């Protein structure tokens, strides 16, 4: 059974068997506007919570997407190299950004669930 968390930075994290799939929320993609480039991380890179994992670039600006916890990148969504607009059209499905093996899943325990996130964005 997967658990999905949400951050105040408008990321979603779906955790299954210690591996987190991370993306940005529909609200976030709408705020950013049309994406034209996603700078993806290399597989095997280790990240600390708060490190920049991915940079998403809209027509106008670049925005960092942070690692929600410590861990190691196991996969980046290669489909985004040729079609960054997947993040706009399917932010919580085909537009996922990266997967990481979590060092300590407990680091996510303070995050919001979907109801909490929806209440935050209002």
């Amino acid at each position, binding site marked *: 059974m997967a658990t999905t968390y949400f951050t105040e930075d408008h990321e979603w994290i779906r955790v299954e068997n210690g591996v987190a799939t991370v993306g940005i929320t529909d609200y976030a993609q709408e705020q950013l*506007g*049309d994406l*034209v*480039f996603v*700078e993806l991380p290399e597989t095997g890179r280790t990240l600390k919570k708060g490190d920049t994992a991915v*940079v998403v*670039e*809209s*027509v*106008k*600006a*670049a925005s960092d997407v942070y690692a929600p916890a410590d861990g190691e990148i196991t996969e980046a969504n290669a489909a985004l190299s040729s079609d*960054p607009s997947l993040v*706009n059209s399917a932010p919580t499905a085909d537009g996922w950004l990266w997967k990481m093996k979590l060092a300590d899943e407990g680091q996510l325990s303070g995050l919001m669930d979907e109801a909490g996130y929806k209440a935050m964005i209002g």
Partner: protein
Amino acid sequence: MTGEPLLHLPLEDMHVAAGARFGGFAGWSMPLTYPAGVMKEHLHTREHAGLFDISHMKLISVSGPGAADLLARACPLDPAKLEISQSKLTFFLNDEAGILDDLIVTRLGEDRFMVVANAGNAAADIVHLTALAKDFDAVVEPLDRVFLAIQGPQAEQVLAGTGFDVPLLTFMHGVEPRPGWFMSRSGYTGEDGFEIGLPADDARQLVEKLLSDPRLMWIGLAARDSLRLEAGLCLHGNDITPDTDPASAALMWAIPKELRASGDFIGAAALRTIVENGPTEKRVGLKAEGRQPVRGGTALVDEAGNPAGSITSGGFGPSVGHPVAMGYVVAPLAKSGAKLFADVRGNRIPVEVYALPFTQHRYRKG
């Protein structure tokens, strides 16, 4: 502008009703995008027509027997040589020939001119011009107008479709089609189109009629920026500033030859010296390899890693489908095809000097 409350467009309610997302620009709360999004808005303008609310920009009337002489002092321009209805791009320069603002001046009559100023500089422009006017028999009058731009290959048809009798104008000409209106065939997208300054009540009626035409949609400031960047047009504050001069900015074409030699405009002496010595850096188009945009503020280096300039505006060009940028490059490398590199978060991105514009201008010249 930090801490200052933002100014609001007279038609703000219409933008709210259209679902605009707002952001601050040059002291104004401006529609950045509408629900279609920057990409669709940009492409729609190039394919059909876009409606822009540019009321943050300022129309300034300059009139009186000394109006032409005032403008000849304030700008590297020969206003007396403009035909009636002719418009010209020009500048206010400081004593060092730095660009205080870029402006469009249109001759409306024998001794009447319309000056269109950028939002962020308008207040300073008015102070500057009013102070200069003391020595001339001329009146400087900022006008309270809604200012709209209709841009794109179908702009003329859409405008005519409202029942408005579109005056016969070619690119860079302007007239007063009705009392209180100013209209020019010009714009900031590289496309054919019009800019219309008019009283707010008239503007509401015109906008309602215009938007009933499906060929037209509201276009926000985000697409306005990507459109002008593809067209190679400068944004004051980014690509031209009080620290850049018309020679470095590759804008000498806007200054008549005889004025370069003998003009008495503010900044003339400094500009002559810069031209004689040759500018050390020049504004050029820049095309990054791949899809990753290089943004304003990014430093450029040559192949050996020596500093070679910097990017002043950069983003993605929806019509050309690749990153587009402009910036200043050291003079020896400021030629098409020169190879440079931009450092973007540790990635060394190859950047080529590219002849502007990225999208060909499609102005109605005749």
